[in-house]
């Protein structure tokens, strides 16, 4: 394994909670190179030959195993486009931890565009965690454009936790999902933008099979002069249930555009969306001040809780 420097190690902690080499299967990508890779008896990680990226094969029935594929970038001006494809066998039950950390101290933009495709087998269950983080005080931007495609077979279950709390200057997140009968998709997105950052998050979820369901909840905070756009479209093509919720707090000169959309193509499709944008409620701050917190501390607690 390639030796990682202190900044790279810190990024790994931020995006994947990794303090050391993870258990199980992993691939650590550092400045466009593999800094370490391990497959297991049930999970095979193979580099692609045509484009940059990995094929990850998880055998049917694999249980209680995990895959870590974090990416760290510390080289200014680096731009990469990576395709990672996950083939998850029937009845598997695994956790996948991705995430990208960029430290850019230079003057050129650093950009990581990761396309993740998930082919989820019948009755398989995955939990996917993706954290994005940026640091470094260079003038160059830290840009992350994740594309996520999910194809769920019958009765499969996918839970996705997508977090971007700090330091990413520009991001366009695009997520699409297609669900067969009985499949279930749960997405929890947490996003905070600050300074002049811009974040766009788009979801298109097609509920194609009877009894399929999706629940998308985005909690976002836009502070300083940042801007966010959230678009979630749920399409009900069968007897299914879908719910999306976008809850945003705006502070300072932050701006948020929420565009929830529903499309029902079947009379038994039950679809609901909720969207709310507002500043922190004054009563919340007052309550925490009566517990002895200053106004700034109260705001911090409210934001921390909201983005938990």
């Amino acid at each position: 394994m390639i030796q990682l420097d202190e900044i790279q190690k810190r990024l790994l902690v931020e995006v994947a909670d990794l303090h050391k080499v993870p258990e199980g299967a992993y691939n650590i990508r550092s400045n466009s190179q593999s800094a370490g890779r391990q497959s297991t008896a049930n999970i095979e990680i193979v580099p692609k030959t045509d484009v940059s990226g990995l094929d990850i094969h998880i055998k049917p029935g694999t249980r209680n195993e995990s895959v870590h594929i974090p990416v760290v970038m510390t080289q200014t001006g680096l731009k990469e486009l990576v395709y990672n494809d996950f083939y998850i066998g029937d009845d598997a039950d695994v956790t996948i931890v991705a995430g990208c950390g960029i430290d850019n101290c230079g003057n050129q933009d650093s950009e990581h565009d990761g396309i993740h495709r998930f082919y989820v087998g019948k009755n398989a269950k995955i939990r996917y965690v993706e954290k994005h983080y940026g640091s470094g005080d260079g003038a160059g931007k830290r840009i992350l454009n994740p594309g996520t495609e999910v194809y769920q077979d019958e009765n499969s279950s996918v839970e996705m936790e997508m977090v971007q709390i700090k330091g990413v200057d520009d991001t366009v997140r695009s997520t699409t999902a297609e669900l067969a009968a009985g499949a279930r998709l749960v997405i929890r997105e947490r996003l905070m933008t600050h300074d002049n950052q811009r974040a766009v998050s788009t979801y298109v979820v097609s509920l194609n099979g009877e009894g399929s369901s999706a629940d998308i909840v985005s909690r976002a905070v836009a502070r300083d002069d940042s801007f966010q756009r959230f678009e979630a479209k749920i399409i009900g093509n069968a007897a299914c249930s879908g719910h999306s919720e976008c809850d945003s707090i705006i502070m300072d000169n932050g701006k948020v555009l929420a565009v929830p959309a529903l499309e029902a193509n079947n009379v038994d499709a039950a679809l609901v969306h909720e969207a709310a944008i507002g500043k922190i409620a004054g009563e919340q701050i007052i309550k925490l001040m009566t517990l002895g917190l200053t106004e700034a501390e109260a705001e911090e607690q409210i934001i921390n809780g909201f983005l938990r």
Partner: protein
Amino acid sequence: MLELKNISFAVDAESAEKEILHNVSLTIPDNKLIVVTGPNGGGKSTLARIIAGIETPTSGRILLNGEDITDKSITDRAKMGIGFAFQQPVRFKGIQVLDLLRLAAGKRISASSACEYLSAVGLCARDYIGREVNSSLSGGELKRIEIATVLARSSVLSIFDEPEAGIDLWSFQNLIEVFDGIRKDIQNSSILIISHQERILEIADEIVVLREGSVAAHGSRDDVLPLLIGTDAAFGCRKIPAWRGAE
């Protein structure tokens, strides 16, 4: 000991000034449970919010143990030992009951210590400690958690603004026991409860009647309560006060 000296509070209402409190002077001694009662709109909640620093009086001074706190912030007063339970508790998305109790205690208390505060307000702690303080909780549950946050503060003056509001009759008996319990541990502190409930008036050491922004009566429970029973300042479960319908 808390002293209110000539507190007045006015708001602008339709281009005319409306006085909510008029020249209220009151002393809340240590080791006493004081209940402030009176008709709705009489200024009770405003008085409580002025003591906590949420509202600023138009005139008058507030002294806590001799120190003038009139110009102190909500935060400063909380740090000096004033606890306040809201009439309508605030909801927080994402903040859990345990987080709120830890913020209230001002330290990272253990989950089992936090559970004691919840048990004290009649909640099965195990079911609540990890719950978010959001709209999934009922009004009664929130109200009890609100009271638990004040218990966790170990305040020198604990103010409860209509603790019975939003609590069902079944839970109400439990609430009386909670206040009886707090009262037993009252050493070097005092409790101020804003309430209409006869059952709460019955456990008071002193009763203050606030009517139309002024102190209409103030004395020991035995002196004041008989004057109130059956009137519009206090009611039991079966009485329907005329002024409630006139709101």
